[in-house]
């Protein structure tokens, strides 16, 4: 298979994965709508669980297709598939979905599927429409082993931060819902984890990847020293990485030492997460600076 065949195959796989992802989203949404409508009828619980299982199977299928799409993209360019923002986005969606699938092995987070598939669709949709660039070799500045180290760390941290943020958002929504009904949950939310569990889970995820995020920044700085002649130059991407770092550091501090829990902590988590998204979207697309490999 020639390199351009591989590039086309990759595109097809990405489109196919999006279709399956959309399907998974619809099934998750159907299940949610069903449980909202049925209200108090408890008998449907097992049937609804079956539907969830279908949705999750579709999510796994979507993940596998996307994985194949990312791998063929890398093969078509003869390198790791992290050379521009299109590739970064598809790998990011992959990491995000993987974080969800792994987390759902250990924790009760299947119900998050609707958010995960929605966010993935959004990411992939943006990638194929706005960010797409043809498969091409790396520009000289990216030819370095640090590409793998730095970008892998950044992508994984990003995926897990976003997952933690989805959970924090779910916390805030459920908290609101419970408050309206004086602590009781509507039928559709009954099987969702307790608020405390959500709170703990998003904290654990952040605590887990915060060191990795720190490492991603340090690796970036070491690389910048070799590629750009300085390890820190307050380039917009560097500035916003620092802001995200301080944001999550404040979040961890607030939890560990001030005992912030619940709503306040969730908001802080969302603020820190939004600085990450801002860095990813705004700085890549509209920002200037050295970090623009997005090819836009």
């Amino acid at each position, binding site marked *: 298979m020639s390199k351009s065949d591989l590039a086309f195959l990759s595109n097809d796989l990405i489109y196919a994965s999006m279709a399956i992802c959309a399907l998974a989203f619809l099934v998750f949404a159907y299940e949610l709508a069903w449980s909202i409508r049925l209200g108090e009828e408890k008998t449907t619980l097992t049937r609804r669980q079956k539907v969830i299982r279908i949705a999750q199977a579709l999510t796994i299928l979507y993940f596998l297709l996307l994985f194949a799409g990312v791998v063929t993209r890398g093969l078509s360019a003869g390198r790791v598939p992290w050379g521009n923002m299109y590739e970064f986005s598809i790998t990011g969606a992959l990491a995000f979905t993987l974080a969800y699938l792994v987390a759902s092995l250990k924790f009760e987070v299947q119900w998050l599927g609707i958010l995960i598939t929605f966010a993935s669709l959004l990411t992939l949709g943006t990638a194929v429409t706005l960010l797409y660039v043809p498969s091409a070799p790396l520009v000289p500045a990216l030819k*370095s082993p640090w590409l793998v180290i730095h970008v892998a760390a950044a992508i994984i941290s990003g995926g897990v931060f976003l997952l933690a943020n989805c959970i924090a958002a779910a916390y805030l929504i459920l908290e609101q819902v419970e408050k309206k009904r004086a602590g009781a949950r509507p039928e559709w939310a009954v099987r969702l984890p307790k608020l405390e569990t959500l709170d703990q889970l998003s904290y654990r995820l952040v605590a887990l990847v915060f060191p990795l995020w*720190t490492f991603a920044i340090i690796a970036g700085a070491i690389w910048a020293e*070799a590629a750009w*002649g300085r390890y820190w130059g307050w380039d917009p991407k560097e500035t916003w990485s620092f802001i995200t770092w301080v944001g999550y550091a404040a979040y961890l501090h*607030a939890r560990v030492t001030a005992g912030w829990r619940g709503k306040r902590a969730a908001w802080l988590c969302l603020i820190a997460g939004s600085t990450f998204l801002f860095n990813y979207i705004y700085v890549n697309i509209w920002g200037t600076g050295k970090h623009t490999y997005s090819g836009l």
Partner: protein
Amino acid sequence: MAPALGFLICGGAMSSSQVSYDSQPPQLSGIGFARWIWRQLTSMRTALVLLLLLAIASIPGSIFPQRSQNPLQVNEYYQTNPEIARWIDRASLFNVFSSPWFSAIYILLFISLIGCVVPRTWEHFKSARALPPITPKNLERLEEFHQFSTNWNESELLKHASSELNRRRYRLRTLPDSIGAEKGFIRETGNLLFHLSLILLLIGVAYGSLGGMRADVIVSEGETFTNVATSYDSLSTGGLFSIDDIPPFTITVKKFTAKYDLVTNAPIDYRLDAQVVDEPNKAPRDVVVKVNKPLTFGDARVYLQANGYSPIVTVRNSVGAIVLRGPIPFLPQDGNLTSIGSIKVPDMQPQVGFVAKFLPTFERTVERGGFSTYPEALKPVLDLAAWSGDLGLDSGIPQSVYRINTEKLTQIGLDALSPGQKWELPNGVGSITFDGFTPWVNLQVVRDPGKAYSLVGAVLILCGLLVSLFGRRHRIWVRVSQKDGDTIVQVAGLTRSPGLDEEIRTLVAVLQEKSEIGKEDNVKE
């Protein structure tokens, strides 16, 4: 938010010794007030607030163009909105990272961290040798509390508890009726390491900018660059830098090769073959410089930063004598290396200047005029506009080498030349020949004596972070007492890290099992 943040800082893993904060300044004047200020500044609360402030203060630096990164964009800003630009400049928003207010936050953070962490480190090392805290009077008030009674011997039970806790690496304080145990000293060590390393990082950054230098020089193929202050095109140095800090090496640019992708026109590879002499009288050596592979001379490094073309021209005067010859570096304007430049010939009467464009792969449309469609020189053309009059070089105002001020000049003609072509200027003024072209490279010489400190600081920050996030700190107390002939055993603990409840539950289970007939009669949540 302030009270919460206050607790945030003084509570927690850092506080082996609780520090109290007076939120009101004392009514004392003089020394008392100064001490109050110092205490406020060096509280961890202040340090964290300053770190947050530093993050917030860096935001405008990513919104407004920065002089240090993008001087052209700053100029553009000035041209489009001169009035607003002046106000922005007054607030240092074009120089955020060297502005007084940014430096103020940075320096305060530095002082605050030192004042806060150094004494704490001292405390910490003293407490490393100290015994675990004395058993509190009312154990039942602690968050984890278990109690059971047994008819086993008190001292036997305590002995068992000791050996059990010992096995789990607790440090012990043995009292007549109880034992205190503590574990997880490492967590606090990690926390302190983190903050101390932050100081080291800041020192590295500060030392690097004070003792460092950064200089740029454009060298055409075939030319030799000698590292002395006068040969730079631009040079910026820190306050403590002296030019003797870097060796007088030379670099001869032998060959520069750029490869481009035929589909996207993006660069694939830059390679500079050069010969360097590390010090005068040393043997020359051949080197290859690439984007991710700078040259190293002592603690200075030389980076391959940019590249472009230098057209080679020969200018003759009205009698045919050569008045100017050589490669003249042009400034690239886009990815296809459409380059602009100027050829100034002051030694003619009247003076002549050429406003020029070099197009490596020439194309022309009505709307755009001449431009380049590929970065490699496949069809090179030199577009020239000749001007005659006063170049204004003697006015004392420094001029860009790439531009000509045409105020006191009149245009005398336009032409486009291919390599080898000659243009006879109108009115017998003289002629210009486009002999060819050669690539140039922009070498950046950087010395940063602080970067090793920063790197060590950053790596230790990461280590400290890992230890303080994943280390666990527990305190456990066991007390025995007599009641109606039975032995009452109380086990309680205090923690800020997860896992204590389980630790205590297993301890209680083990003790009950050991005392065989233990029966738990009170478990408090």
